[in-house]
C-alpha cells in the first residue's frame, strides 16, 4: 500500500513537471509570431545569431518565468493560509493580503513614478504586512485565533477598505499613470522583463526553501489546537511566523504581476486532492500547479482573443470564481 502511494506520488510529480515544461515551451513558441520548437531549443542552449534571439530572450522567456514564479508564490501563500486557519476557503486574495499589497503598489505608482522596479517587492511586502497585521490583531482573541471565520470576515472588510483606497488613488492620479496602474492591477504579465524576474526569484526561492525546512511545524496545525498545545508547541509564535512567510510570498508575487486572483485558492485545493495533507509533499505540488495555472492563463489571454490581449488575472478570475462558489455550495466546507 505504502509502496503504491509512493509510486503514485512519483507519477503525479513527474506529470506535473512535464506539464510545466510543456507550457513553458508553448508560451515561448506561440505568440504574434510563431517560433518553431527547434529554434527555441537552439536559442535556449545559447546558440548565437538566430533570428528570434531577441524575441525569446528579451520578451517571452522573462515573461513566462515571471508568471511561473508568481504562480508558485501565490500557491504557496494560499497553502500556508489554508493550513494555519484550518479553512479550505482561505487564500491571500480573500484574506486581504493581496489588496493590501496592491494598494501600496498603486500608491507608489501614482505618486512616485520614478520608483525603481527592484524596490517594489518591499513596498508590496509592506502593504501586505500591514494588512495581515490589522487582520491578525482584530481577529485575535484571548487564547489565540479561535475563529477562522472571523479572520475571513476581517479580510473581506479590509479588502473593501483598501478597494476604496485604490479607487481614490485612481481618481487623483493623472490619466497616464492611472492607466498604467490599472493595467498592473488587472494582473497582467504584459511587458514583463528580466527586471521583474530577478527581484522576484530570491523571494520565492528562499521562502520556499525555508518553508520546506519547516514542514513539520506546519503540519502541527493539522492537529486541533488543543492537542498541539498539549504537545508543548508554541502555536501562536509559529502561526505568526507562517503568516509572515505567506505575506512575503504573496506580496512579492503581487508586486511583480499585480493581483492575479484565485490561484492561491485553487492550487492548494488541487494539490490536496492529488497528494493529501502532508505539507512536505503538498507544498511543492501546489507550487507546481500554481505556476501551471498562471502560465496557462497567460497563454490563453495572449492568444485566445487576438488582437486584444486579455490579462492573465481576468482568466484566473473567470475560472476561479465559479470554483470558489462550487466549494461554497458543497455541504461539508466550513
Amino acid at each position, binding site marked *: 500500500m505504502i509502496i503504491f502511494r509512493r509510486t503514485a506520488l512519483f507519477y503525479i510529480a513527474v506529470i506535473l513537471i512535464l506539464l510545466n515544461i510543456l507550457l513553458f515551451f508553448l508560451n515561448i513558441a506561440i505568440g504574434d509570431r510563431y517560433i518553431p520548437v527547434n529554434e527555441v531549443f537552439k536559442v535556449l542552449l545559447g546558440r548565437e545569431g538566430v533570428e528570434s534571439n531577441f524575441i525569446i530572450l528579451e520578451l517571452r522567456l522573462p515573461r513566462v518565468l515571471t508568471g511561473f514564479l508568481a504562480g508558485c508564490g501565490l500557491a504557496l501563500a494560499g497553502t500556508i493560509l489554508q493550513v494555519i486557519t484550518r479553512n479550505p476557503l482561505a487564500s491571500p486574495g*480573500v484574506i486581504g493580503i493581496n489588496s493590501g499589497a496592491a494598494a501600496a503598489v498603486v500608491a507608489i505608482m501614482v505618486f512616485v513614478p520614478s520608483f525603481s522596479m527592484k524596490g517594489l517587492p518591499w513596498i508590496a511586502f509592506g502593504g501586505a504586512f500591514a494588512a495581515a497585521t490589522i487582520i491578525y490583531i*482584530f481577529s485575535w482573541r484571548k487564547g489565540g485565533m479561535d475563529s477562522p471565520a472571523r479572520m475571513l*470576515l476581517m479580510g473581506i472588510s*479590509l479588502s473593501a*477598505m483598501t478597494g476604496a483606497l485604490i479607487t481614490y488613488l485612481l481618481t487623483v492620479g493623472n490619466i497616464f499613470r492611472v492607466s498604467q496602474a490599472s493595467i498592473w492591477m488587472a494582473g497582467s504579465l504584459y511587458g514583463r522583463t528580466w527586471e521583474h524576474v530577478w527581484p522576484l526569484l530570491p523571494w520565492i526561492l528562499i521562502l520556499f526553501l525555508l518553508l520546506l525546512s519547516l514542514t513539520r511545524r506546519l503540519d502541527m496545525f493539522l492537529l486541533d489546537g488543543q492537542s498541539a498545545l498539549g504537545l508543548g508547541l508554541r502555536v501562536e509564535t509559529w502561526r505568526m511566523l507562517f503568516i509572515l512567510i505567506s505575506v512575503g510570498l504573496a506580496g512579492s508575487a503581487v508586486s511583480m504581476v499585480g*493581483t492575479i*486572483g484565485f490561484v492561491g485558492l485553487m492550487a492548494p485545493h488541487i494539490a490536496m486532492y492529488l497528494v493529501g495533507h502532508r505539507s512536505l509533499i503538498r507544498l511543492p505540488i501546489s507550487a507546481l500547479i500554481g505556476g501551471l495555472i498562471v502560465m496557462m492563463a497567460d497563454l490563453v489571454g495572449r492568444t485566445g482573443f487576438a488582437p486584444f490581449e486579455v490579462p492573465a488575472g481576468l482568466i484566473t478570475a473567470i475560472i476561479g470564481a465559479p470554483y470558489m462558489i462550487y466549494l461554497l455550495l458543497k455541504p461539508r466546507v466550513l
Partner: protein
Amino acid sequence: MNSKWGHKLTGLAILLSLTLLMFFFSILFGIAQISWESISKAIYSFDGSREQLIIRTVRFPRAMIAVFVGSSMAVAGCMMQALTRNALAGPELFGINYGAALTSVIASFILGTTSLQLFAGSSIIGAAVAGSLVFLLSSTGRQPLTSMKLVLAGSTLNLLFASLTQGILILHEQSLDTLRFWLAGSLTGRSMDLFFQIMPILLIGLICSLLMGRQLNIMNLEKEVAQGLGQQLRGTRIVCILIIVLLTGGAVALAGPIGFIGLAVPHIARLLIGNNYVWIVPYTAVLGALLLLIADIGARFVLPHQEVPVGIVTAFFGAPFLMVLAQRKGGMK
C-alpha cells in the same frame, strides 16, 4: 404603548428635521459661498444671477440626489439583511454595486459613449442580474447557505465583476478617464433631467418598502414559525428582491457604486429603534439620506481645493464599522 409610539414618532421627526437642515447646508456650503436669501430668491423670484444659477443647476440637484440615493441604498441594505437574515448583507458586499458597474462599462465599451444616461440604464440591468445571482446562490443547495458562506459568495462575485471591469477598461482606455470618477461614487455633475428620469423608480421602491415592514418582521422569524402562521414566504421574498433591485439599480445609476451606506445604516437604525421592521425601514430611509448628505458635505472639505468622491468618504467611515461588526459576529456558525 401610546407613549412608545410617541417617542418613536418624535425620534423620526427629529431625524427628519436634521435631514432638512443638512439639505440646506448642502446647498449653502461649497467652493462658491451662497447666502440664505439667494436660496429663497432662487425658489420664489428667479432672476438668473450666478448664485441662483448655481443653486438651481448644481447644488439643488446634488442635494436631492443625495437624499434619494442615500435612503434607497440604506433601505435596500435593510431589506437584504432581513431577506438573508444576515447582518453583513448589503449591496456592496453582495456584488450588486460591482455588477451594476460592470454592465455600465460593458455598455459604454460596446456603444462607444460614456453618457450618464447610458450608465443609468445599464446599471439597473446589472444590479438585477447580480442581485438574482446572489439570491439564487443563497437558496440553492440542500440546505440554505450559512451567512458566512453567503458573504464569501458575494465577495467572490465582487472579485469576479471587478476583474472583468478592469479587463474591459484596459481594452477601452478613453472610457477609463471618465469611468474612474463614476466608479468611485460621486454626486457631482448629475443633471436634473437624469434625476427626474430615475426618481420615480426610487420613489416606488421606497414606498413599497415602507409598506413591507410587517412582512419583513415575519420573514425574520424562524422559517417553521412563519409557515405555521400561514405566511407564504415565497411571494414576500420575490417582492423583496424586486424592491432591492429597483432601489440599488436606480441608486447606482444616479451616483455610481457608493458603498457602505446600505450595510451600516440599518444597524444604526436598529440600535436606535429596536428590532421592529415597521419602524426600522422608515428610520433607515431617513438616516440614509442624512448620512449621505453629511458625507457629501464632508467630501467638499476633507482636502483643500479638491473634492473627494463621496463614495470614498462613505467607504472610509463604513469599512471600520464593518470590521467591528465582523468582530462581533465572527464567532457565528
